[in-house]
């Protein structure tokens, strides 16, 4: 009898919770641009003094290959390249923490990141009335832990983008010399 009452209460609670969750409101929150969108855009963008968008795209594929990415999509007409790579996501600190938790609370308490898929989208745009091509690149990653749970994040570290463009600039120069 008691079980049945608990179950009914549970169902009621679930219904009331569903009513609270407004998908449109959630979407509005999620769809909002990040707070520091201007800063992010400047991190992600560089301009190159060339009229040849194709050369920039070719140099980009080479830089992505340098970094071990596999090209998963490309649309040269629209100046788009999409690539990804799968890598180890285990971190020493996290694993040590997992050991401590496992010792204290048992094996089930231990959670650590196992692997990650790093995605990159690169878009080239010729700048109107100038002899420049703009490159915008964005990295994100999906991390899977040992419990098979996933979480995603946009990479917003200035250092990552700085290093990428350093490599790409050398590539654009090289490619430009060859053609």
């Amino acid at each position: 009898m008691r079980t049945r009452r608990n179950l009914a209460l549970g169902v009621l609670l679930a219904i009331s919770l569903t009513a609270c969750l407004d998908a449109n409101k959630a979407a509005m929150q999620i769809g909002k641009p990040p707070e520091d969108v201007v800063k992010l855009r400047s991190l992600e963008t560089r301009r190159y003094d060339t009229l040849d968008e194709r050369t920039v795209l070719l140099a980009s594929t080479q830089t992505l290959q340098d970094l071990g990415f596999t090209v998963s999509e490309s649309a040269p007409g629209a100046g788009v390249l999409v690539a990804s790579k799968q890598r180890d996501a285990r971190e020493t600190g996290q694993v040590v923490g997992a050991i401590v938790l496992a010792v204290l609370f048992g094996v089930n308490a231990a959670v650590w990141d196992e692997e990650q898929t790093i995605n990159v989208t690169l878009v080239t745009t010729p700048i109107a009335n100038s002899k420049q091509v703009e490159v915008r690149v964005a990295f994100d990653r999906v991390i899977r832990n040992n419990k098979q749970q996933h979480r995603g994040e946009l990479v917003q570290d200035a250092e990552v983008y700085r290093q990428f463009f350093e490599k790409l600039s050398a590539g654009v120069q090289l490619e430009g010399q060859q053609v």
Partner: protein
Amino acid sequence: MRWRPIPSVLMAFVALGFLVGCQTDSKQQIMLTDKTQVELRAIQTRGFDTTDKPLAVRNVISTLQDLGFVVDKVDDTLGTISGTKLSGYAMRMTVTVRPHGKAQLAVRASAQYNLTAVSDPKPYQQFFAALEKAMFLTANEVD
């Protein structure tokens, strides 16, 4: 709080095993390479004495198929071919074909094996040996 000596000790051993070769920040993997750009390009690139890019793209596709890859994506404008080989492991590979000088095509292959970038010369030598046969041309080192 329950003390479980056996699983904990086991767990510690397993975790210690994981610690070997572990990193402190997994985000570093985004830019991480185990060889320099110049070394990698030398290992992964070969020049072929032809300017027939569409034919080279077709030959790369058939070579990948011969090697057991399923082709995922081809862009004949940029000369980009990607494929995956699943055989108890996952090997993903991107091959790019682009003009090199006036009379050559540069073909570059890059691959990952499960969660690791392939930077050993041997697998690439094997790939280019197979591609040479398909193209009826010699694969030259590219500077």
